[in-house]
């Protein structure tokens, strides 16, 4: 059954490829209205058998069909002013639970015998998720105003989200945990965004200011999904309730307490730099003080007469099921700095050979998070706890280059290997092992610093039709990491077939127990 389905998907993709013809956007009214987008089919399968501690022997975690539409209406184009309306809409249907009965049962049981988790991974269920962006934009000679739901990308580096903290993410859109496509998985937020670009500023400075009367927490895959079902959740009756509480407790500030931030961009002596500030609530909730017992009871027991009716508010043992009043989203302040510069030197990799780097760009991104909150366990495994606020410092250095490979490069029409190496380091000087920043900072509760090296490679064969790539990350502190080779085939513009393998290495003791979750991803994408 599974094999037939996969074959059917592949045949559908192949049929589309050979019948769709030239891929073109839809241009209406002489180009004033443009609609383009993509359709994709993705299949994510486990690469290895399940481990003994896993309760369900599933194979397929995603069998997803996605449609994304990007729309632009150039409503007014004058000599000085322009008015545009822009929108991005995305919806998917994931049929994995139809294909793999064990996977369906795992999701069902993880949500206490309900379809809640199944529905969450099957498709977006509300307009908020489907509409990723929708804003109007007024351009003038010295300014731009964007009003509406938007995604903002700050920062320089890939993979590590440092300064790029404006929008929370929705993990349900992420089928590539090795190298998440953040532009695709960020949630749009309703905001006002202002650019001021006055001429003749010192250092060519331009100014950006954001006001965000909207808050959304990070959306996680539900418990029961492939890599959000660690061993510890097996003992709980409804572990997904912890995640549900996470969303229920999100505040609705609106205009009373907007997030706000700003960024200055400048250019000095060949250095392109930005300096930013962002005052915001954390997107990942922190367990409220003295809630450890409460956090365990509801998910452990699930929906029972006791959990539905218990009201020992003096011990915080109320709202046990549905679980709520369990998380807090405190405010913190981010200061970020980015800089980049081309480094115009040829650097031999192996002296005496032609193997060398050219066209180098050095990038640096630094971050100071002030008042970053976390749970501080005071006693009794968290029964007595408080929220601590500390400073976090992080820096990421990136080196992007093109590599000449003897024999290979000349043979393949002088195509150079694209190479990016990143070194990431973070430090929380005051962090104690009883401070639960885990798993979003330092990844291990006993550490106060963390170092990671990542490597990205990409190449092209056959005039850009065969595209191999590699992404790998190594956690220097404990020796674990992951690597993900991929190869894409583009027989024509608009059509991409891709196979990716994701292997986790030495992460047996990781919080999500992902060491056994190596996976294959098969993708077909048609863009127009």
């Amino acid at each position, binding site marked *: 059954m599974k094999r037939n389905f996969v074959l059917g998907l592949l045949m559908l993709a192949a049929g589309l490829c050979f019948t769709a013809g030239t891929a073109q956007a839809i241009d209406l009214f002489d180009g004033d209205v443009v609609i383009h987008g993509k359709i994709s089919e993705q299949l994510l399968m486990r690469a290895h058998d399940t481990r003994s501690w896993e309760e369900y022997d599933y194979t397929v975690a995603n069998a997803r069909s996605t449609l994304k539409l990007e729309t632009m209406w150039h409503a007014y184009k004058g000599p000085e002013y322009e008015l545009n309306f822009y929108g991005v809409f995305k919806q998917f249907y994931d049929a994995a639970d139809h294909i793999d009965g064990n996977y369906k049962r795992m999701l069902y049981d993880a949500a206490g015998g309900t379809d809640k988790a199944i529905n969450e991974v099957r498709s977006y269920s509300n307009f908020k998720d489907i509409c990723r962006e929708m804003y109007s934009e007024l351009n003038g000679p010295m300014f731009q105003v964007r009003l509406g739901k938007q995604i903002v990308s700050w920062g320089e580096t890939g993979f590590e989200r440092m300064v790029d903290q404006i929008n929370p993410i929705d993990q349900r859109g992420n089928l590539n945990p090795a190298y998440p496509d953040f532009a695709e998985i960020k949630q749009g937020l309703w905001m006002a965004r202002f*650019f001021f*670009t006055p*001429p003749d500023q010192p250092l060519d400075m*331009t100014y950006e200011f954001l006001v965000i009367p909207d808050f959304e927490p990070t959306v996680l895959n539900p418990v029961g999904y492939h890599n959000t079902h660690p061993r510890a959740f097996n003992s709980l009756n409804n572990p997904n309730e912890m995640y549900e509480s996470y969303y229920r407790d999100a505040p609705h500030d609106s205009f009373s307490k907007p997030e706000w931030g700003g960024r200055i961009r400048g250019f000095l002596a060949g250095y*392109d730099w930005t300096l930013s500030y962002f005052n915001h609530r954390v997107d990942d909730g922190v367990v409220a003080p003295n809630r450890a017992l409460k956090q365990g009871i509801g998910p452990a027991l699930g929906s029972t007469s006791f959990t539905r009716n218990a009201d020992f508010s003096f011990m915080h043992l109320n709202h046990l099921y549905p679980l709520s009043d369990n998380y807090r989203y405190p405010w913190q302040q981010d200061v970020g700095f980015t800089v980049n510069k081309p480094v115009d030197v*040829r650097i031999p990799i192996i002296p005496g050979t032609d193997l060398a780097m050219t066209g180098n760009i050095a990038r640096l991104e630094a971050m100071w998070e002030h008042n970053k909150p976390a749970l501080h366990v005071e006693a009794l495994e968290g029964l007595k706890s408080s929220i601590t606020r500390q400073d976090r410092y992080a820096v990421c250095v990136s080196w992007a280059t093109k590599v000449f490979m003897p024999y290979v490069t000349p043979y393949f029409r002088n195509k*150079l290997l694209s190479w990016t190496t990143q070194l990431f380091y973070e430090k929380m000087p005051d962090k104690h092992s009883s401070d639960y920043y885990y798993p979003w900072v330092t990844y291990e509760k006993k550490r106060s610093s963390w170092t990671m090296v990542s490597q990205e490679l990409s190449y*092209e064969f056959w005039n850009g039709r065969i595209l191999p790539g590699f992404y790998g990350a190594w956690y220097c502190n404990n020796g674990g990491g992951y690597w993900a080779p991929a190869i894409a085939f583009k027989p024509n513009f608009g059509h991409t077939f891709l196979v990716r393998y994701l292997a986790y290495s030495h992460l047996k003791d990781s919080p999500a127990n992902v060491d056994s979750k190596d996976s294959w991803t098969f993708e077909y994408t048609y863009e127009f």
Partner: protein
Amino acid sequence: MKLKIFALGAFGAIALLLTVAPFASAKDLQYPVACYQGDDLKKLQDWEATWVGKKITSANVDQVKDFLPESFYATMKDTGKFGDSWFEIVPYKSAFASAGNVEMTKKYYGQTKLGPSGEILGYVSGTPFPDTKDATEMAHNFRTRDYGDGYNNHDNAWIVDGRLKYDMNSEIKNSLCFFSGRTDMPPVPEFTENPKQIWRAFTMLQLQPPETRNMRIMEVHYKDTLKAYDSWFWMPSIRRVRRRSTSERQDAQGGADYCAFDNMGWDGPVQVNIYKYLGQKDLLMGRHTDSKKLVHTPGDCLFDGTQRERVKMHVIEATSKDPNFLYSKMVWYLDPENWQMLYSDRYDRSGKLWKWIDQLGYVGKGYNGVDVPHFNASQTVDIQRIHATVGSTDIQFGVELAQDIFTLDYLQKHGY
């Protein structure tokens, strides 16, 4: 005493000659010069009486073999790999640079010199070395040729697989603006405000293929030709403006058959190459192309219907100073009337012919209706891989381009 007076007199005379020489030369400078005059023109017209209007196909191309670059002839003849193709012979017509360009050339004649690395020094506007026989100076003439002071254009191109016989389409909008070196469109020769000392600036918006739709690139070249270019791009997939390296221009671009150095014939500093003059050659080149007559058949590496006229092309050989350069040598064919590169051969590292670039010239209309010789179609053929990038473009010369479209914040504000 007599000797002293004589010496002083001679010194004075030499000084006077040196002082007035450039002005006298500028006044007497014959520029532009038609490449056929007198007997040459008569002979040409006799030849044209037989050949103009004839359709030259792969079958009868031998008859005009002497008037074609060897690589072009060989490609037309190799029908097994490249299929049948044809072009039409049209009469020679002059294609001079604009009136403003000629005026600037005369005005600043003699002021431009070559620096120690072969870079250009003291250049203001027009053609820097109009009467040269030196290959390096010719290369600078090509680099500073007439662009109508700036333009908007819309490219439609096909990336052609000649083996599998199919195309992939791309569509791009470009804007190019000269901040200095201007000839026809006020202000000349330079914008009043040019604090960054920019020579020219370029932006590009990609419309097709869909994978890179809305990608924008901006590149700035400076008057100081030894200064590295600056470039940024807006990448929709990551929704960010990112810095680009401009020193690495050898990397193959996408699935196409060129690298950044190949844009417009040669898009890089002149001084990175060593040049050798190979002489003048009478060749059939496209320089008054009606792009509507060009016929592209999917899977064919060559346009049919190119319109070619005889021109006495300057032929120069360019060899990179970088021993690791992707081309062991290039042969440039430059139009003597306007310094446009109409044709070029590129050889791989092992010395084998790799690709040729045929830029099909035409004369557009610029500011106040002045003639602007440029090209409105091109074909880059990789003869080793039987692959090509062919395309045509619609150009508007002499358009008013706001300087702020060549800024980083413009990329940011118009990034979607």
